[in-house]
């Protein structure tokens, strides 16, 4: 050929062309080999090892960049003060502590994919369905996992007794304000599996988050933060949930009889695999400090391959796998 590459014989074409033209058969051709190596060179159950760079944003209270193969996501946590007197609906006194965060809405995640991170998400566009559902999933996980102690987000004040109160009571502790955590998640590069990486980035940024010491100034009637780093406290996390996503590739189709259908479960799918696989399974696992493990979330849709046994096997594998301990 004119450009010096070796001329291919008449009816064959290079693998990139094969992948572009017919992505499904291309993936199938790889998987049906006896050893089942994926086009990206990984084993079926092989995850990409994430690299975490914590504290990379200087102007936020906590931040992390997580890179997982060609997916890179940056998460910044910014803390702002919400005065209790500004609340339109103050929390009722009998509200459970665990419900406080959700009632006040003081964890505000936002996922931004319109950064030019992948050709599927045009830069500058409003958040599409994927970005919005990622935002929702992160928020729902934050609420249902109760990883943040609401007392860490309270700014309390010891109120001295006034004359109207009973004289024998000591000073009362009242919550004057709350910390609101704005969690901004930006995808720098997206090559599949946004939810796992975004969640890992959120967790890493939380671990890195420092809240300044704040107190209520009675005379000025406002919250005052101490500028001294030595007085600031880190956000304590109760536990560290891990999200794991798999995509399922199947040859089953309503056009064919179901007997010869074959399926493969691909851990941590990349962008190419995500486009070809309709069915996905996301599991969020948490291990408590006392060693008990439980599931926080199971999300599966798009096909009929995953069965209850498969989830149990997946769980077993995952509990024993080193990937979990490496992440946690």
């Amino acid at each position, binding site marked *: 050929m004119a450009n010096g590459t070796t001329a291919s014989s008449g009816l064959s074409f290079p693998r990139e062309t094969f992948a572009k033209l017919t992505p499904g058969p291309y993936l199938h051709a790889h998987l049906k080999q006896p050893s089942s190596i994926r086009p990206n060179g990984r084993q079926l159950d092989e995850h990409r090892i994430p690299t975490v760079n914590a504290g990379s944003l200087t102007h936020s209270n906590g931040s992390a960049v997580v890179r997982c193969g060609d997916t890179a996501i940056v998460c910044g946590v910014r803390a702002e003060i919400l005065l209790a007197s500004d609340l339109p609906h103050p929390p009722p006194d009998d509200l459970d502590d665990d419900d406080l965060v959700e009632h006040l809405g003081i964890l505000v995640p936002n996922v931004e994919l319109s950064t030019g991170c992948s050709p599927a998400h045009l830069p500058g566009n409003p958040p599409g369905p994927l970005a919005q559902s990622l935002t929702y999933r992160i928020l729902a996980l934050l609420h*249902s996992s109760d990883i943040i102690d609401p007392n860490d987000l309270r700014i309390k004040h010891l109120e001295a007794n006034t004359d109207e109160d009973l004289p024998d009571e000591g000073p009362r502790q009242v919550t004057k304000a709350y910390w609101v955590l704005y969690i901004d998640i930006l995808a720098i590069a997206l090559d599949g599996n946004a939810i796992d990486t975004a969640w890992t980035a959120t967790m890493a940024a939380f671990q890195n988050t420092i809240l300044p010491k704040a107190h209520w100034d009675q005379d000025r009637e406002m919250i005052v933060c101490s500028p001294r780093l030595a007085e600031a406290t880190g956000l304590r996390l109760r536990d560290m949930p891990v999200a794991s996503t798999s995509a399922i590739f199947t040859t089953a189709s309503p056009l064919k009889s179901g007997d010869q259908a074959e399926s493969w479960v691909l851990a941590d799918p990349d962008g190419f695999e995500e486009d070809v696989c309709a069915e996905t399974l996301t599991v969020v696992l948490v291990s408590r400090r006392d060693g008990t493990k439980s599931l926080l979330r199971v999300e599966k849709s798009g096909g*009929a391959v995953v*069965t209850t046994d498969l989830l149990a096997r997946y769980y077993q594998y995952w509990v024993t796998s080193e990937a979990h301990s490496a992440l946690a």
Partner: protein
Amino acid sequence: MPPTLTLHPLHRADGSATHTTPLFTILAAANGPLEVSRRDELPEEAAIEVNVRPCSGVGGPRERWMEGVITSLLKSLVLVNMYPRTLVQVTLQVTKEPGMGGLKRAVKDVALLAGLGNAAFAALVDAGVALGGTMVVGLGVAREGEVVVEPGEKELLGCGSVHAVAWGMRGEMLMAESAGRFGVEEWEGVAGRLRGDAMGAIKNDEEDGDDVMDGEVGQKEPWLRQALGESVRDAGAWRETG
């Protein structure tokens, strides 16, 4: 109490259904196959569009997420290859929901997904869109090791975990959404129980329920089969009189 299903409450849509459970009432409308905008057109299959409208206000990230889940559920159910380069549109309007009183949002959202799935399915049946099979989305909660199927607001309030699982007629799991804190055995227990109930809901009266899970006691009445069967009988009634 089994869910109540009313078919064809809307006259202008191709198909519609109202699905009522103790928790939610959902009005679903299905239209299809329709002309598709060029951006969404798929050369070999029908595009599926799901719109979820909340009880009050406009939809936000939560509704986008629900739309995504229901879309991928319907994609595995509708025979999309029969309608290439067209659009199947499903609109789901929540008309009744339990009061917020202390209910965790994540729990309520998973509970709502079950209703949305069932309503969308019934509307598609009513619209005459070709489907690969029947399905039922079951809802169950686990509290202190005990499983409650089709929970009311009271059961939902103090539950440890909530599970919405869609079962197809051949016993395949089409969708699973669970939230809360639960073990894998607990999850399997709820999913198995919901499977039994789903098979019961579409069980054929004439046949002996051999294909239904063995040892399943207290079978629910086949409410889905009855509701769909009635509508088929109504649709064919003109033949008898004519």
